[in-house]
């Protein structure tokens, strides 16, 4: 199972790592983000979505309140947050089935709360606190869908 690990030491680095990951993502794909409060899920997502050219970094904010954000610029990206979803019935009412109508990049925060099934390949990213601004980030690409990484871009 291809696994990659990084350690970042600032929010900017986490966002930059998101951009690098974005350059290797091809729709359709699901990106499951796990990690506790403040671990950097939204920060990493800022990098992924801006890296995909779907929105500016500053326009990617926490979807905790609205639950699903969708960006249509350049390509379709969904940013979903399951923090407040407590049961499967609520999950079903999010209208996520429409998400899979056409190829998209779907990023799901708090994905560990449910066993989510989809026909699309899944990339799992786990974020961990490692002191003040440090974060340990582990990526699992069990389906092997990430494009080969460009060593020139590898910074962390």
């Amino acid at each position: 199972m291809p696994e990659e690990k990084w350690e970042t030491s600032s929010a900017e680095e986490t966002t930059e790592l998101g951009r690098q990951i974005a350059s290797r993502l091809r729709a359709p794909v699901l990106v499951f983000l796990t990690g506790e409060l403040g671990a950097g899920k939204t920060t990493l997502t800022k990098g992924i979505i801006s890296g995909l050219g779907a929105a500016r970094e500053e326009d990617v904010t926490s979807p905790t309140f609205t639950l699903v954000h969708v960006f249509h610029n350049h390509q379709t990206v969904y940013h979903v947050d399951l923090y407040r979803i407590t049961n499967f019935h609520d999950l079903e009412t999010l209208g996520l089935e429409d998400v899979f109508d056409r190829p998209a990049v779907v990023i799901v925060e708090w994905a560990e709360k449910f066993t989510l099934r989809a026909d699309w390949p899944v990339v799992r990213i786990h974020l961990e606190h490692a002191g003040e601004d440090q974060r340990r980030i582990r990526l699992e690409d069990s389906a092997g869908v990430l494009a080969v990484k460009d060593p020139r871009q590898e910074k962390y």
Partner: protein
Amino acid sequence: MPRDARILGIESSCDETAAAVVGNGRTILSSVVASQIDVHRKYGGVVPELASREHLRRIVPVVREALDQSGLTLADVDAIAVTRGPGLIGSLLVGVTFGKALAQAKAKPLIAVNHLEGHVRAVVVEALGAGQAPELPAVCLIVSGGHTVLYSVEQDEPGAIEAAPFRYARIGQTRDDAAGEAYDKVAKMLALGYPGGPVIDKLAAQGDPSAVHFGEPHMKGNPYDFSFSGIKTAVLYHLRAHPELELESRTRQAALEQGKRRAAELLPLCGPHTLGLLASFQRAVVTNLVAKTLAAAQQWAARSVLVSGGVAANRELRETFAAEAKRRGLAVFFPSLALSTDNAAMIAAAAYPRLLAGELTGDDLNAEAVLPLA
């Protein structure tokens, strides 16, 4: 001279089902709000499916009650206004569908309103009710559980403020969590119930705001953007570094489960360390909101500062804004508590200038979860 219009407003963007009748964009004839806080409390936040189900259950009686209290019938109403977005899509759909059906059945003009513009108009309605009119241009901070955004507000055409369309530009917004969301998440970490804002506000008043130092969020780019994710994480780290606070949290959790959720009931279960943490958290959030808003007011040569949204009900935020704005010779306006949180009077008021301008919507109106005002 604007023509007379009594508008029925309907609001269902999040967890309040609300209806109101407002005359000429300034006189509140009735305003009814059915809150779902009790329904959502045990989940620590709004649950979307529950929210739309509750809206469905409540919308008919709430609209009927608003009409009754205004002494009007549906036939007397000149137009119907409904919140189109932003908000929870399932919740918005209830109001939009109901408003559309009502407008069609009674052949009334239908006006779609941006929820955020409603919050801006709430401040104007409140001021007019108190015999004042905020001078424009203004900057408006909308701060709630779902939003933290700063706009400049201008009026292009001369005329009464309640009848004139506003022009908005976005000055800054949160890059991560809304301020109210940070309150809710901190309240969850410390077992203080939901919603977090009002309880933390009351408890913070009993603590030492200099007890814990929270650094300024370091951000590049737009200096008027906000960030509340860092302070939420800082509270988490503080709790980890002080496991002795855990026992208190567990005691409070037990109290919450027994239905003891008022600040007065939770206060004896909070030691000075916890109170200091809350006071410091609130001080950091408030200082940040006030500093950026007033800096923007200066930069945009604003004549007034408008503060709206659920967090505008926060005592320390109001006091700090009032004191700091006074020092700068700026007028600052807040809505009353009832108009700070989600309500339909603000929707009806926001619809009035649009009705006068003939900005009506058809039956193709759809709810929009994401709908920037500018």
